[in-house]
């Protein structure tokens, strides 16, 4: 991973795009697993969670990179956590006010964004060392990569478990829904195979490059 420590200079577009595949927070860095597994019973839940993380990560990266030179080194982690917790409270109040059903479906996993290691990880590894502009690009890229992966995982589980995608019926009458996909084992197993599939594709691409 080239710029985990944020020292390697890559173009702005590279900063943005890396979160989708090469440094995908879930599939490569295995960060933020709790919400990933817990809320992805349907594609819409995954999308909401992804957007909530997008807001919190962008906001906190912005603030962290602005204050990075003022905050003493010893107290930076508590400072970051308080900044993150504030943004999470904002998202939570927003969802409760405007999207009550979704807020109920996601339950305590919205407040748990506070301890989502993606956010603290990006704040510590990237935003605390980089300019505001680069931190913003990094935050948006990583959280969009997170969102896409969540929607994908939620989509698979929703299609196989309820025969719907974003609430619309997609599979015909003949298919018996696999209820297990909506339960915890379905989450673990689907994500396990997604990781396997990504490794397989990576290996195939490497082989192609060699030829």
């Amino acid at each position, binding site marked *: 991973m080239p710029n985990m420590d944020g020292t390697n200079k890559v173009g702005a577009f590279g900063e943005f795009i890396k979160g989708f595949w090469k440094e995908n927070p879930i599939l490569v860095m295995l960060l933020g697993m709790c919400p990933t597994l817990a809320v992805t019973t349907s594609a819409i839940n995954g999308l909401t969670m992804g957007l909530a993380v997008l807001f919190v990560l962008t906001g906190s990266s912005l603030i962290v990179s602005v204050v990075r030179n003022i905050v003493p080194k010893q107290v930076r982690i508590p400072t970051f*956590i308080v900044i993150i917790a504030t943004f999470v409270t904002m998202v939570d109040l927003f969802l409760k006010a405007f999207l009550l059903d979704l807020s109920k479906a996601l339950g305590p996993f919205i407040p748990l964004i506070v301890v989502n290691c993606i956010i603290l990880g990006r704040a510590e590894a990237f935003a605390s060392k980089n300019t505001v502009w680069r931190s913003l690009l990094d935050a948006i890229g990583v959280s969009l990569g997170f969102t896409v992966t969540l929607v994908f995982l939620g989509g698979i589980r929703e299609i196989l478990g309820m025969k719907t995608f974003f609430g619309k019926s997609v599979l015909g009458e003949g298919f018996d829904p696999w209820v297990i996909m909506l339960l915890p084992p379905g989450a673990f197993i689907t994500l*396990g195979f997604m*990781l*396997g599939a990504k490794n397989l594709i990576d290996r195939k691409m490497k082989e192609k490059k060699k030829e």
Partner: protein
Amino acid sequence: MEVILIFISAVLVNNFVLSYFLGICPFIGVSNRIESASSMGFAVTFVLTLSAAITWLINHYILIAFKVPFLEYVAFIIVIASLVQFVEMFIRKTSKTLYDALGIYLPLITTNCAILGLALFGALREYSFIQNIVFGIGAGLGFTLALVIMAGIREELDLADVPQPLKGAAITLILAGLLALAFMGFAGLISA
């Protein structure tokens, strides 16, 4: 009676790792060897029990008393972070053996979502003080149980022939799925 139900439910039926997905990071990261898994489980149980007591007091005597429930997340996370720090200093001063046994696992606990999850679930379900502590102990033991079983399986897995792309985290997740499936068998113990 209700206290026993809360305990059994937290250990087996609604296992924090396998049915609430809390504490997945250490579950995948520290489940290589049974020894380190049980040290981690022990450290987490200890902090969970303490934080169950303290977050309950904070919630009832500060947040609810002063009518500022919207500060819940900020208050809880500060309490947990400083509690872990404090526990680490206390153990280092009092028991060298315990400190060496827990080692690097203590600071890692701050970002373990099981701790904050416990505080939030406890507040949501409006447990009494005693119930909340029992809930904390049960959740910790359930976490330890899942972690140690997983470590046992992974020690055997070293000898197995796993397909190349599934090696590492992927097969661990699939195993966790099978384990979660087994734990669903406990669901009949308690009728919700």
